[in-house]
């Protein structure tokens, strides 16, 4: 395993911690958290961008140089996600889009089928598409085919802080999918983010945990460091993560024994 940089759609990211911008007390705390953790990519819901009101416009508080990804929060099907993405682009928010298609306001689970459809349409229109999905191998493969720039499987329910409940399935995506795997949703503590990185995720996106912490900037920094540590651990080839056969063969070594002469 080599320490190759994280590249999404040709853009290099030194920080593997991505931050969502919802639920902060105020824009100042959000901006401080962004600066403190050194993230280079933030997501903003188009529904929360008030283009007309400069003082209240969240975009005014995002430091220059940070990549803005608009999300399609509120979309209930592919068609709505596509319309929101186009509106975001027309509003000057760029062409990086995180697709969120959610048709369940109780669990907020993403609709994988509609997500694939939206990815296909938007990628063909030249958007850089980061689809948020439930970690399913077939969906991930379809997203690759549809032109996604990354795959963003959920760790657990949005805002639940429950960590990597989908660990085994995310691991399959890490092993099988060649696009960057960004673990998104449900990551409630730096230790959980580190776990995802140790597993081999390429990056982690967090929001609720940071935004609702007593000191968001401090927690954001802790996340960034945990993610870096987790990534280093992954590169080190953790002994606990070895899935291939070990050099010694305690179970099959007997087959190579030289038969004793009677």
């Amino acid at each position: 395993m080599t320490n190759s940089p994280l590249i999404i759609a040709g853009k290099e990211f030194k920080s593997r911690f991505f931050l969502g911008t919802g639920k902060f007390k105020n824009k100042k705390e959000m901006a401080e958290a962004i600066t403190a953790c050194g993230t280079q990519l933030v997501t903003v819901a188009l529904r929360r961008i008030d283009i007309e009101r400069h003082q209240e416009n969240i975009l005014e508080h995002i430091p220059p140089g940070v990549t803005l990804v608009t999300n399609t929060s509120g979309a209930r099907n592919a068609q709505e996600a596509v319309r929101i993405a186009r509106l975001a682009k027309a509003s000057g928010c760029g062409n990086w889009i995180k697709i969120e298609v959610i048709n369940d306001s109780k669990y907020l689970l993403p609709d994988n089928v509609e997500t694939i459809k939206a990815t296909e349409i938007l990628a063909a229109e030249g958007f850089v598409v980061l689809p948020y999905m439930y970690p399913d191998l077939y969906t991930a493969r379809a997203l690759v085919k549809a032109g996604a720039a990354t795959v963003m499987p959920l760790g657990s329910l949005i805002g639940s802080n429950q960590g990597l409940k989908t660990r085994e399935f995310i691991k399959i995506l890490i092993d099988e999918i060649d696009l960057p795997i960004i673990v998104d949703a449900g990551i409630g503590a730096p230790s959980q983010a580190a776990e995802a990185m140790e597993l081999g995720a390429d990056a982690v996106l967090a929001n609720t945990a940071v935004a609702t912490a007593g000191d968001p900037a401090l927690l954001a920094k802790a996340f960034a460091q945990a993610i870096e540590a987790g990534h280093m651990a992954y590169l080190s080839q953790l002994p606990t993560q070895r899935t291939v056969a070990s050099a010694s063969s305690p179970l099959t070594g007997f087959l190579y024994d030289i038969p004793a002469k009677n």
Partner: protein
Amino acid sequence: MISLQKINDILSDQRPESLEELAQEASFVTRQYFGRAISLYAPLYLSNYCSSHCTYCGFHALNKIKRIKLSDDQYHREMQVIHAQGIRNILMLTGESYQHTPVKYLKEAAQAAAQYFQGIALEVHPMRVEEYKELFAAGVDGITVYQETYDRTRYAQVHLSGYKKDYDFRRDTPRRAAQAGMRHIALGILLGLSDPVTDLFELYEHLAQMEKSYPGVEYSVSFPRLRPIKSQEFMHCDVDDMVLTKIIALTRILFPRVGINLSTREEPKLRDHLLEIAVTRMSAGSNTSVGGYALLPEEAQDPQFDIKDERSVAEIIHVLKSKNFDPVFTDWRRIENNV
């Protein structure tokens, strides 16, 4: 789902420590799912013509108030005033009158509102699915419809005549709105009209049914309440601040992601404190009279209910920020609604 008995136990528990515990849990859940974001909206009364006789309402058909319906030019002027205050979510209301405020009128008002607002909701007479579809296509994303009370006997006692007398048609309204594609649906009960325990139980059942059948809709609930005033002989009971707080906290715990509204019917102090516990949506700078923002002087206005929180939008923003809340003006960017 919670039992009737359990709701009764919670609402009748007088111990301060139980209430505090309930509030703490609700507050934790609210912060987890909503952070400190508070969505703001304003009501716009388009018309007070009404063909129903609901004993508790200032607009009811037999009440001798001046009946007004805003013209195209007039609602534009009202919308401009609300827009200038910074509000981007509008709730347009009328009395219940198919005759005076038919779908065509509501559609035109919605098309006008689309020039100023990102979120457009209606609180008007219940309609059929086809009518809701027309309104959805015209830009309406939300429907507010309160059952007022789920107790059929009480319902019949306070809804004496008109369309609103039809309990089942009203009870089924959220389903029809959802079927038409509406994104936001607000349910509610009018506290004080009937037994709050039964009403709350029925409201929870209704909400749970809706969540199950139409999971894609964002739901919110409201708990407007009648306060004891002379001549309000239709009141069944007085739901005091303590019970209202319990109701709001319990609702949050049972429905973590559901929006909870609190209108300007309530005093500023109570509103501000309930934000800490569970409220996530509030109206601001409200006027509950037809033409109240730009057209009529105060002495000429007939409000649907008296406003207790008279703070302006700017004042509400200031208060929210000083309490570390993030006032949210847009939580939707209008897209073309395909039916």
